[in-house]
């Protein structure tokens, strides 16, 4: 699998590091890791840049993950980029809403590195 650039959107810096570590443990070669504290910062991070994968929390201040997903639809650089939601949100309706808004998968916290690998690697393989 070729090296990738990833955007991780979560209001917890610790959680962003955990997600990055899980990706590396999954054997994914990360050439660049962009981090954003909320959806607004996530959209700003994509201005003039393209990433291969976006992982986003749902429950965040300023702009939550669902608003971020809707905002992504207007970002030319994000067209076709797989988005996986990583969330404590157990609500089926919120998950369905995320999938309807373009998310390609979701991972429920707490999670194991293997669960991250299972969700993410098929999406990256399909994109390559």
């Amino acid at each position, binding site marked *: 699998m070729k090296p990738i650039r990833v955007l991780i959107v979560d*209001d*917890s*810096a*610790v*959680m962003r*590091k*955990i997600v990055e*570590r899980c990706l590396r443990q999954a054997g994914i070669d990360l050439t660049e890791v962009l981090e954003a504290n909320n959806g607004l910062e996530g959209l700003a991070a994509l201005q003039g840049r393209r990433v291969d994968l976006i992982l986003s929390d749902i*429950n*965040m*201040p300023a702009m939550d993950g669902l608003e971020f997903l809707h905002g992504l639809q207007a970002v030319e650089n994000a067209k076709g980029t797989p988005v996986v939601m990583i*969330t*404590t*949100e*157990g*609500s*089926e*309706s919120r998950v369905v809403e995320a999938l309807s808004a373009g998310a390609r998968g979701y991972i*429920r*916290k*707490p*999670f*194991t590195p293997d669960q991250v690998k299972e969700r993410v690697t098929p999406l990256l393989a399909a994109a390559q």
Partner: protein
Amino acid sequence: MNPILSDRPARVQPDSTWPAIIVQSATEVFQLMLNANIDAAQAPSGERPGQVCAMVGMAGSLTAVFRIRCSKESAHSIATKMLGGQNPGDESAVYDALGEVANMLAGNFKGKISGLSDGCALSVPTVITGENYDVYPHSGGHQIKVYFLYEGKPISITLELSG
């Protein structure tokens, strides 16, 4: 607005199974995110469980606050384990980690209760430090409190329910 908060879902009433479900939720969070085991314990006698408290609010079919409270040493250890053994560095990362634990506890708990999963929204976490304070439940409210030992030190988890 989160539809959970505008649709006025039916209220969910706590029952006698909830303490065990809190224990199960906490055990899963510690095992999956920290690779650590916790042991259920009795309330420590005359001793406050710690100086760091992370809280997550719940609103919708249940109005409540989920709190996890532990010592600074335990909070530091939790953050270190969450980061795969890496030192978290400054205190803000330690509080961030404990806030995430509270968030996952609340999320995992509500996912196990019929009517809460789709009917209850979570707030972002808040962390309080200090020891010399008490929390008084709102009129008509009550609390469910469980204790654990983590690396031999007490941790309390409280679900503070509004009436």
